[in-house]
């Protein structure tokens, strides 16, 4: 799962928002929107400078942690067999390095026709390179191996690759668009070694890495061998690492950068009022109060439901997320098979008290809530929850830690409740497979993402959805899973935090995909 990491919190968002607003002066009209609109025919040339909160680490698809910082570069450098349509909320798989594919009626054989393409070193992309790359991606030692249940890979001719599966896995076609399944030249990976290739990646994507100064910037230039003639439009791309939120905003306001990512929620409105376009796009993230379902009294359904009823989610969405984040009506990311009919828990203290009264903790209890201390939305969320739950007799002790500590306490089960950073807990895929499996069908490996939540019906539905060979069965199973898991409430759902990106008006066609990256081949800059 891609994640972001906050550095030291050097400023409170509100303070800076007030300052920036004060210095902005004027009351120009708001230019909010969800995407940048292309104006006129695209122009070739120009440089796109982006101030990012991420420093890429390792661009080797087969050994990467595939955190956002690296993913966002890998998608520019590598091709995958399929990619996700953008801008498109459903992120449909569309041809990329594969021109077409067929799936056998039993759902166990995938046949891909390959495009005649070249890697940036001039070597042709062969079926053998695809076999090698997908073999590495699906190896048991691969960190993302679980996304690729491939039993065998065949290459009947140089332009065809056949994937054999043991059981149908309709989510696979989406997994193949995730950069862990990037197609890399076998010879270059082997001659460079994994570590070297991670620093000098070679792919068949639209861009090549021309300079990489760790902790400072990574520069891209067009790949002269890119198969899509006429693309990319940009002459160069500079991805600057700017860890401080306020500095990124100043960069985009002064024109030092054209695009700045991860705009704090509270600063979106002031920034828009000062005339900067901020695009707010849906993500695959969930922000929930993760509960440890193995400790009393959280192992009791009534207690968990009471906590859900006692949570004023709309206040949280308003205060901590500046009304930019939709309220969750399920405990899963909002992806392709989202069930809009599931009812969220209304804020109902009477109902919560009633449920608690008949639970094993009728007089309330004390709950430790671990949060990342440097994250402003987490702090605000925790304070609202503390005040609200106190009214039903649940005393919340907020414990502030750094990210690494939060994560290890979570993964070791040493927690009662925990909040991750809002866009930290994200699906790698635009379909529900990864979270359905991770939350409900992976108890043996990691206690269902360390929630210690077990629900036989949810598990059965997850398995059914992940292996159904019929789209209607699959969709129905996902829909029912969302109903069942919302009733079981393993965690208290809060909001789906969107991406917030400041984009100057000269930048066109810049969009995020649901899974946290932004294809740059069709982006262009005007005068």
């Amino acid at each position, binding site marked *: *799962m*891609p*994640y972001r*990491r*906050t*550095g*030291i919190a*050097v*400023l409170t968002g509100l303070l*800076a928002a007030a*300052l*920036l607003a004060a*210095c902005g002066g004027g009351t120009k009209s708001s230019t909010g929107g969800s995407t940048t609109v292309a104006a006129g025919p695209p122009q070739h040339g120009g440089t796109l400078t982006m*101030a990012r909160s991420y*420093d890429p*680490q*390792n661009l080797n698809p087969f*050994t990467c*942690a595939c*955190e956002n910082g690296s993913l966002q570069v890998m998608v520019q450098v590598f091709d995958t067999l399929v990619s996700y349509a953008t801008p498109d909320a459903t992120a449909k798989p569309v041809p990329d390095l594969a021109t077409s594919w067929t799936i056998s009626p039993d759902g166990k054989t995938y046949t891909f026709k390959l495009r005649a393409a070249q890697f940036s070193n001039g070597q042709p992309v062969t079926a053998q390179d695809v076999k090698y790359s997908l073999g590495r991606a699906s190896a048991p*030692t691969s*960190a993302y*191996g*679980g996304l690729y249940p491939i039993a065998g890979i065949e290459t009947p001719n140089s332009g065809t690759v056949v994937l054999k599966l043991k059981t149908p896995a309709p989510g696979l076609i989406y997994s193949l668009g995730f950069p862990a399944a990037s197609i890399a030249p076998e010879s270059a990976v082997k001659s460079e070694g*994994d*570590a070297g290739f*991670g*620093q000098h990646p070679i792919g068949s994507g639209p861009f090549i890495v021309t300079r990489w*100064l*760790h*902790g*400072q910037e990574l520069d891209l230039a067009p790949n002269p061998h890119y198969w899509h003639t006429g693309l990319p439009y940009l002459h160069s791309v500079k991805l600057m*690492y*700017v*860890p*401080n939120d*306020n*500095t*990124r905003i*100043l*960069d985009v*306001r*002064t024109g*030092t950068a054209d695009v700045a990512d991860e705009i704090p929620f509270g600063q979106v409105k002031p920034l828009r009022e000062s005339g900067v376009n901020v695009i707010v796009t849906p993500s695959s993230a969930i922000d929930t109060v993760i509960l440890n379902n193995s400790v009393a009294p959280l192992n009791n359904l009534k207690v968990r439901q009471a906590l859900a009823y006692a949570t004023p989610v709309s206040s949280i969405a308003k205060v901590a997320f500046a009304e930019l984040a939709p309220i969750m009506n399920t405990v899963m990311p909002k992806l392709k098979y989202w069930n809009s009919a599931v009812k969220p828990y209304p804020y109902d203290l009477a109902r919560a008290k009633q449920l608690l009264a008949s639970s094993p903790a009728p007089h309330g209890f004390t709950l430790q809530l671990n949060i990342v201390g440097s994250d402003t939305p987490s702090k605000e969320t925790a304070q609202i929850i503390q005040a609200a739950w106190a009214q039903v007799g649940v005393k919340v002790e907020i414990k502030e830690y*750094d*990210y*690494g*500590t939060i*994560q*290890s*306490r979570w*993964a070791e089960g040493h927690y009662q409740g925990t909040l*991750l950073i809002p866009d930290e*807990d994200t699906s*790698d895929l635009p379909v529900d497979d*990864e979270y359905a499996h991770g939350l409900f069908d992976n108890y043996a*490996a*990691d206690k269902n*993402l*360390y929630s210690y939540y077990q629900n036989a019906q949810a598990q059965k539905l997850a398995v059914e959805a992940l292996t159904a060979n019929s789209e209607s069965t699959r969709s129905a199973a996902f829909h029912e899973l969302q109903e069942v898991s919302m009733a079981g409430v393993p965690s208290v759902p809060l909001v789906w935090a969107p991406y917030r990106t400041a984009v100057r008006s000269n930048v066109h066609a810049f969009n995020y995909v649901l899974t946290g990256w932004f294809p740059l081949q069709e982006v262009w800059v005007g005068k």
Partner: protein
Amino acid sequence: MDAVPVLIGVTLVSFALIHLTPGDPVRILLGGHATPANVAALRHTLGLDRSLPAQYWQFLSGAFTGSFGQSIEYRTSVSSIVGPRIGASALLIGYALLVTILLAVPLAFLAALARDRAGDHAIRLGTTVTFAMPSFWVGLILSLLISLQLGWLPPSGYGTTFAQHVEGLTLPAITIALSLSPLLIRILRSSLIDTLGAEYVSAMRARGQRERRVLGRHVLRNSLTSTVTLLSLFFAVMLSGTVVVENVFAIPGLGSLLVASVSARDFPIIQALTFIFGVAVILAGLLADVAQAAIDPRVRL
């Protein structure tokens, strides 16, 4: 030479601290969805499953031969990550020291000469105010004023040429200087006042020596000895100051790397940085001793 035991002490304490802190670098790296089997496999590849004394010994023996092993986060050699960043931090600290001195020496003189009069009070008030402001705040205000309102300097960036480095480091250097110079001004001022009251100063003035010569040659030089020692202590404060300032201005130096590495629990990088910081502080102390001997003939090395 007590530098070697000091260094070993520094590395031992930092090694113990970072391993006592909860948080597993491999878990942080791979994220929540990695299976325990994936985590175990990577821990083994990175050598994190060996005993702590074995890991420490490998680090220590490597450090004295200039090899710091492999970064967990970047999956490449530590020296290739740390090496290019030394220059940025060194330049930032040098620049900040220069600005601090250029700011502090004239102001301290003004305050000392105008002792207890309006000028002195104004300088003392001003330094109290800037001393109380946290450096991230000063940095943001400077950016808003100089970058956004006036458009003179970029709010972030380090560039690739020396001129770009200097341009990018100007605001960070001023930020550090504003937080450090108050102390220096205060100490230099009282030292100057003491010296100005000394009998030899009155004697020189009585002999009709030019005031400029009295102040520059005798008063300043005699007051500087304590200040130089202070500057070497400042160096350590500056190293920690770079942590915040590099983050604010996106300077690819050692301070911002240290923050990122601690968050990621990238043990080899943290150990290499504490080693380098230890060496730098020891060298700064040594340099101060040499400078003091040059200023004051009574001091023998």
